């Protein structure tokens, strides 16, 4: 039975000398990809899914509009609202808002402003159509409906 008596001596320590390297690598990854948010979003954002996504090439030309039911329904009601920067705005204020956004860009790039509409799943078409018609008047005609990627079913 002596054959089975001997137990192999296995070293159980995990070498930790490379741990700082791994941690630093992760740290740098998150430092580079992180983007500190300057606005708190006060509307619901359940973004719809789609397959035919396009990516925006230049982020400096993009400005966001958030549309959805307010998170504080007891204060703002249940109707979907438009949030630009940090405040709720009405459709009629959009032209002014677009012009202010355009002023932030260099003169040659003003017509390339893209408005990204981050719209909640349950928001109605009505309010979005109002926003779109104001954007047309403000001559900010490049828009993007923000969506998540949906897995395409391959048949």
């Amino acid at each position, binding site marked *: 039975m002596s054959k089975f008596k001997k137990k192999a001596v296995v070293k159980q320590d995990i070498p930790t000398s490379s741990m700082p390297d791994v941690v630093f690598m992760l740290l740098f990854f998150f430092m580079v990809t992180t983007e*500190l948010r300057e606005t708190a979003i006060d509307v619901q954002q359940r973004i719809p899914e*789609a397959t035919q996504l396009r990516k925006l090439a230049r982020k400096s030309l993009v400005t966001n509009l958030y549309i959805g039911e307010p998170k504080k329904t007891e204060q703002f009601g249940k109707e979907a609202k438009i949030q630009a920067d940090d405040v709720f705005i009405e459709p009629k204020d959009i032209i002014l808002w677009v012009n202010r956004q355009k002023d932030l860009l260099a003169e040659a790039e003003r017509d390339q402003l893209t408005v990204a509409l981050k719209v909640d799943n349950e928001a109605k078409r009505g309010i979005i159509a109002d926003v779109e018609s104001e954007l047309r008047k403000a001559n900010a005609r490049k828009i993007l409906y923000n969506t998540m990627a949906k897995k395409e079913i391959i048949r």
Partner: protein
Amino acid sequence: MADIAFLMLIFFLVTTTIANDRGLSMQLPPPPEAKQEDVKIQEHNMFKIQVNSSDALLVEGNPMQDISGLKEDIKKFILNRGNDPTMSDSPEKAIVSYKTDRGTTHRRFIEILDLIQGAYYDIYAEQAGVTNKKFREAASDLADPANRQIYDKGRAGVPMQVSIAEPTKVGN
């Protein structure tokens, strides 16, 4: 040192929001002018999609529950080239008309718009001889001449004519 690194790592892990700037790209039409000419469009050159306030779908006047075949229908309509008299004369003349109601949810709107754009991108990708995904990537970065070439080749003769009409006012 590893402790400090860990601390910073956790900070960035918590605060990070990986930016999502992808979605369905669109170009809105110019603002309506006071004097507008009526443009006559032949009925058969238009593919009509309507969605009502309860998200039910009407395609070319017929109710449709299962949307899995819609993309193929749109492609067939665009690339008809006069074969079937009830469909478009040529891809240049083909218009996909998409009308919703004010009460239609955004989820439904995106679902159908995704199919319409998907039909066009499939056609473009086939013409350019690349995959759909590759074409969309190329279209997102036109500064690169190779991408520009793919883009122009794909879109040759098939303009993306999607008309999104002002919504009706049944639901709100």
